[in-house]
């Protein structure tokens, strides 16, 4: 993220005005158990992923004074396809880029995430990896488990969102307003087994999602 005060101001204005008008006014979020959201960093918001709006929606839930600490984690290959796009997601959205599949090459793809947590930042992370089918929860990737076990003191907040996959699904560029619901769960902590953590998180997220029965989307 940029240290340039002008770019930081732009980022603040983008989230304080554009994102809030878009997410809170044009769409409208109903938040269940808002009090479970972290009041300070480090923390990880782990949510289901259906739409490009997901990260913006999660970030709009947090108070603006925490904005400098909010960092969505996103794949390099998807977002760095052009210079303008790369500049925007780096400086305005403030993402931490992750190289998909780089763990197999021997490096630690989550190093930047761990460093961010050590600085007390709040990560916005989608453990499914990609958006998948609209309004369904796909299997979780292992990365979140590794991250949780590497920083076992950091609370991982499971979150389930309904409706954003209808408002702006994968493959569409037209935003259609729908009300969205956000279910916030109790924080989970990493233990020694990353796979056990992933299983637990997936079960918790599925349970959060099952708390309401959204209308069919066919």
């Amino acid at each position, binding site marked *: 993220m940029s240290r340039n005060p002008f770019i930081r101001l732009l980022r603040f204005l983008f989230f304080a005005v554009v994102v809030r008008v878009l997410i809170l006014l044009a769409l*409208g979020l*109903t*938040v*269940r158990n808002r009090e479970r959201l972290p009041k300070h960093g480090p923390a990880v918001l782990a949510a289901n992923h259906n739409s490009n709006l997901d990260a913006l929606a999660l970030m709009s839930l947090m108070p603006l004074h925490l904005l400098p600490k909010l960092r969505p984690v996103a794949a390099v290959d998807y977002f760095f396809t052009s210079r303008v796009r790369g500049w925007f997601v780096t400086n305005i959205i403030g993402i931490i880029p992750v190289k998909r599949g780089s763990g197999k090459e021997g490096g630690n793809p989550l190093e930047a995430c761990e460093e961010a947590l050590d600085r007390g930042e709040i990560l916005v992370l989608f453990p499914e990896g990609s958006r998948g089918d*609209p309004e369904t929860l796909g299997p979780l990737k292992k990365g979140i488990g590794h991250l949780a076990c590497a920083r076992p003191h950091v609370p991982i907040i499971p979150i389930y969102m309904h*409706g954003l996959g*209808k408002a702006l*699904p994968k493959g*569409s560029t*037209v935003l*259609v*307003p*729908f*009300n969205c*619901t956000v279910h916030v769960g109790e924080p989970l902590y990493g233990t020694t087994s990353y796979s056990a953590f992933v299983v637990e998180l997936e079960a918790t997220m599925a349970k959060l999602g099952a708390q309401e*029965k959204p*209308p*069919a*989307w*066919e």
Partner: protein
Amino acid sequence: MVFGLPEHVVYATAGVWALLVVASLIVWGLRLRGPADRYEELVRRTESWWWMIGAFTFAIAVNTTVAIVFLAFVSYLALKEYLSLIPTRRIDRGLLLFAYLAIPLQYYWAAIDWYGMFIVFVPVWLFLFFPALMALRGDTQGFLRAVGTLSWGLMLTVFALSHLAMLLVGGEVYNPVAGGVGLLFFVVVLTQFNDVAQYTWGKLIGRHKVTPKVSPKKTWEGLLGGVLTTVAVAACLGPYLTPMDWQWSALAGGVIGVAGFLGDVTISAVKRDLGVKDTGGLLPGHGGILDRVDSLTYAAPAFFHFFRYFFTS
């Protein structure tokens, strides 16, 4: 004229605020005396009233344009809530965006006082246009259901609610006492008052259920007590805010009370069918916006045409 509002509307608004203050003090007193969480719902409900009455006062106090934009925004929130509640077909996504565009157009007809277009735009043009558009998209699976749910949603949230804007603009010349805003104030405040009155009478002496299957909390005692209270208040308020004498005002109060009840029951049936308790979470203690404007979707057109038929020719 005070703050650009007719004097009578200013005093009536002050009366509503006084009522809100008294009600809040009562709720506050109840909470201090009773067990901590027993009145939690009532407290949140009262808090939401402050926001709603504040927004409504602001909207009518600035000017007619702001009031119309405010009413259009309420329509937008209601339509969005409705479309989010019902099952929708993925193929209709783009079309639903068009449905939202109906709102500025419909309120524009009201703003320029073009009654002819206002009254046919949704039930003629849109009701014919959207099914044809859906048919041209080529998916016939669930066609009839998609047409039915969309049309009825537009009817309730756009057409019915936009009568408030038409009353505000078109009613101006027929109401020397307090203008179009006086008529708007009359129907909105009485409808909301009627809701509270029916709820309160039902809580106090309710025994016999009106619609056990649809809305088990509604009782005959609540309905009758509420409507009679609304009739009494309307008889007092009508001559002050509208060109109607007290007898006609009482009758208008009856129309608003009964229509409000029907609107409430209709939205309850929608919620039952979909298996939800509230239409949303926008207004803490009340539910969604549809939970709050459900009675208005029936009371606004009912009062509008009652007034138009008897007092504008």
